[in-house]
């Protein structure tokens, strides 16, 4: 038959392809031998991988009959979260262990939670931690994520500018008075702005309202975005920029743009309000400021007010698609909850560990690239110890992702950059949208 050959060839190719499909997709290597556990781990911050790998080494020495291997992948930030979501939704394709960033975490607490509960490991040591850092990853009393750090927010002062103006950080007690006063002195002595407030991100606004015990939501989950404290705080930022002309907007709108690092490094501002985890940026991108920056608690808003806030964060979770939930949760707890683990968090990642009883241990006073960079030197953590009781938990609800995005892209932008709305108008509009 004339069509014979043609048909045969096409058929052959199709068969080959189908075979190829199934062969190539290959499976995972078959079930592990007893006592051998392999966990897949997704993160968006490749540096986190080092912490888990170190933990695996230590674990394997301590429990040689239950060896753990971690297979890590570093994916783009938005991509990791979207893939995870779809995987948990469809019941297939999720990793065993995963890092979930705080502003996305709420997405995974919707409906039936597909993550494992760590409570039995957390409860015994809860009082040695900044508990706020567990609350943000919890629902209904269960803890679904373990934190990497406190994210304690501090002020980074450029001592060159402050010295030129004759200002001492310890004298800056209150935002509305001392800080503004210091800003004036700095401006007249050096011509530089005191700081920048983000117009496209939330790290200037949120810590400030958090230290006043305010938030986007209250503990019951209601939207309080447009309350008086928040309005007043945003107004304060606006006034410092446009009325007093003592602050400005960062180039690019937030503190993680490529050009902001250049701006910062050139000493264009005398102080910066950011969490402790921003230390790495100074070390990596601001070589000219080495030895000039002092880390100090935030000023207060009222007498006995808090001087810090716990910002940002990533929780490591175990998904319910993991075959060995018990070992996995125990392993992650091992990597995050012990004293040893928390010391490692500082040594390997340079983060402020969430377990405060290690803050005065000798390892945290040892020299490393951070102590060599910041003026505080090896006394870096004493600053933190001062404020350990002054960190409010952040209230996380299912609307958190939307809320943060609205604050970042609408609220602070419209008030501080495009100036098309007053603080109340912007906050209220966003709050109303959330309330729908």
């Amino acid at each position, binding site marked *: 038959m*004339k*069509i*014979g*050959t*043609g*048909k045969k*060839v*096409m058929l052959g190719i199709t068969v080959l392809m189908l075979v*190829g*499909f*199934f062969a*190539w*997709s*290959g499976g995972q290597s078959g079930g592990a031998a007893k006592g051998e556990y392999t966990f*897949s781990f*997704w993160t*968006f*911050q*490749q*540096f986190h991988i080092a912490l888990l790998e170190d933990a695996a080494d230590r674990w394997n020495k301590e429990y040689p009959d239950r060896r753990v291997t971690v*297979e*890590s*992948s*570093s*994916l*783009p*930030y938005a*991509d990791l979260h979207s*893939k995870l979501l*779809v995987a948990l939704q*469809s019941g*297939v*394709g999720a*990793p065993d262990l995963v890092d979930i*960033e705080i502003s996305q975490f709420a997405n995974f607490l919707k409906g039936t939670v597909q993550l494992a509960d760590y409570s039995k490991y957390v409860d015994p040591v809860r009082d040695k931690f900044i508990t706020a850092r567990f609350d943000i990853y919890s629902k209904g009393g269960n803890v679904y994520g373990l934190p990497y750090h406190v994210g304690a927010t501090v002020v980074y002062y450029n001592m060159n500018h402050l010295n030129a103006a004759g200002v001492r950080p310890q004298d800056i007690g209150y935002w509305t008075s001392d800080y503004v006063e210091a800003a004036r002195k700095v401006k007249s002595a050096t011509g530089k702005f005191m700081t920048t407030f983000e117009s496209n991100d939330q790290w200037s606004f949120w810590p400030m309202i958090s230290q006043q015990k305010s938030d986007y939501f209250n503990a019951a989950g209601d939207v309080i975005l447009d309350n008086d404290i928040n309005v007043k705080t945003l107004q304060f930022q606006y006034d410092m920029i446009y009325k007093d002309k003592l602050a400005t907007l960062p180039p690019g709108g937030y503190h*993680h743009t*490529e*050009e902001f*690092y*250049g701006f910062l*490094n*050139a000493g264009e501002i005398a102080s910066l309000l950011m969490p402790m*985890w921003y230390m*790495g*940026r100074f070390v*990596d*991108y601001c*070589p*000219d400021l080495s030895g000039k920056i002092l880390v100090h608690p935030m000023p207060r808003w009222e007498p006995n007010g808090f001087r810090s806030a716990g910002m*940002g964060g990533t929780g490591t979770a175990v998904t319910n698609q993991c075959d060995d939930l018990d070992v996995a949760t125990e392993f992650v707890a091992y990597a995050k909850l012990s004293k040893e683990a928390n010391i490692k968090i500082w040594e390997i990642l340079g983060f402020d560990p969430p377990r405060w009883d290690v803050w005065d241990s000798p390892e945290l006073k040892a020299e490393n690239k951070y102590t060599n960079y910041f003026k505080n030197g090896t006394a870096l953590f004493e600053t933190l110890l001062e404020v350990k009781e002054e960190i409010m938990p952040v209230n996380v609800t299912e609307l958190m992702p939307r809320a943060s995005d609205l604050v970042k892209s609408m609220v602070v932008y419209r008030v501080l950059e495009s100036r098309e709305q007053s603080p109340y108008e912007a906050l209220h509009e966003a709050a109303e949208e959330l309330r729908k």
Partner: protein
Amino acid sequence: MLTVRTKNAMLRSITVVVLLLLVVLVLFPLYSLIVASFRSGRELMRLGLTPSFLIPETLMLDFYKALFTERNGIYLHWFKNSFAISALQTIITIFFASLVGYGLGVYRFKGRNLVFSLVLFVLMIPIQILVLPLFRIIISFRIIDTYWGVIAPFITSPFVVFFFRQYTLGIPGDYLDAARVDGVSEFGIYLRIMSPLMAPAYAAMAILQARQTWNDFFWPLIVLRSDKKLTLQIGLASLLTPYGSNYDLLLTGAVLATIPIIILFIAFQRYFVSGILAGGLKG
């Protein structure tokens, strides 16, 4: 009174100047990238894209060396993946799409217009909107995180089909009849007689397809998940996080990611252009 020759000379100079200016403008970003790949990310942050950065005094090769060792040579995996997927997808897509296009262009059969309209339909409608269900299908076929998962939905690229159809439209029927009289099968005609004639089309489409697959971002982003399976584009993108980015690897990696495709193009430019020209997007 200007003679035709002077007029022509003037026109020529103006044209050259305009084109030259435009080309310089167009190639400037690439130049910046290349320079940046020889300098540290820290310098880039510090100086920005200013003349002092762009006209470097020293160039460092360190970053190129680091490319192969950083994170256990993950970059090499990305490169291999991009290469393999591009090669596979190009070959498979060109093969199948040319079959379809040939079928549409050469034969008159019932349903011909319907099929062609479907092709046009797919061409006009962004497949990205189907990403959610597509993803679920790929998962159920168990080809998630594999090369095939990336390639499968696009095997019959409507654009390539369209091109081959146009290309083969003009072929006179007697040519084929003569082959049939000689006892060649339909598929044989395609394979042994038409294919050589379609060589420029193959070349042109192959380069376009290779380029597209090499630079593809959105769909591989959805399908691939393990570190070692990522393609260059996604791997490079993973270096940018909200909590700090690895600029050194990114810039150097980006330059190396562009070189192969540029080489491919320059080497085959002749075939590529003649293919496009011959195909002529008539009507």
